[in-house]
């Protein structure tokens, strides 16, 4: 089995805020991340697929096709956006890095070509904070 990873990036605003709670509780739980006027990040996204290389091409998946898929399904919808307000596939979800990684998985997993299986979404919110999701 071979694992192939493509790295992409996007910049976005968000806040961590549970609308079912009052402002005081949101600030107690989420601290400065609850700022009502938003804050933002440079997100780095690592998408890993797994499979066997084709005998004809030597490719597990054409990495240009993987890049194009990530751009169309994820980057165009997230880059320079407000995650809480602008993104259809995040509506009603808390915009944590954990939930964002799971939502990105859902955007990509059904669109993998034959022979390539989505293995991992690794998402950096800052250079020091990241999450990984394996679809489990």
């Amino acid at each position, binding site marked *: 089995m071979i694992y192939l990873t493509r790295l992409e990036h996007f910049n976005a605003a968000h806040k961590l805020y549970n609308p079912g709670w009052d402002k005081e509780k949101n600030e107690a739980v989420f601290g400065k991340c609850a700022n009502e006027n938003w*804050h933002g990040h440079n997100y780095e996204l690592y998408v890993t697929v797994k499979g066997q290389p084709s005998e004809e091409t030597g490719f597990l998946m054409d990495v240009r096709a993987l890049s194009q898929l990530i751009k169309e399904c994820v980057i165009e919808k997230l880059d320079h956006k407000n995650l809480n307000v602008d993104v259809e596939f995040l509506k009603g979800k808390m915009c944590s890095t954990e939930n964002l990684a799971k939502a990105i998985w859902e955007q990509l997993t059904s669109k993998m070509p034959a022979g390539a299986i989505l293995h991992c979404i690794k998402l950096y919110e800052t250079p020091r904070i990241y999450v990984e999701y394996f679809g489990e």
Partner: protein
Amino acid sequence: MEKKVSVYRKEHFNAAHRLHNAAWDEETNNRVFGKCNNPNYHGHNYGIAVKVTGVPSPETGFVIDLKLLSNIIHEHILEKFDHKNLNLDVEEFANLNPTAENIVMVIYNILRAQIDKQLDLQVRLYETPRNFTEYPTD
């Protein structure tokens, strides 16, 4: 003349912003600022590198105590910028577009007032790992 040395302190903050000129119509704003003009904002992990240049003190060996420099940056910059919306939460940008150019000049001016006039100061601001600005120029 005694030799000068530069010392640097790196810090970071996360903030939202948008690029927008209120005197222009939406079409012009979109043409000039593109997706950076999103009315709902976007954001960055900003990095700053503060460079202080001077002659090391014969008594301490320091140009400036880097712990003191770190404290000044935390108190006067990070408290004001971190997890904020630059357009809405930071008074300096009430009427100033928060481009990387303008942000670095605002940070420099705030820090300049806090650091010994005998020492030279320069600030570099990273908006992304690939886009950064520096002020003043050499």
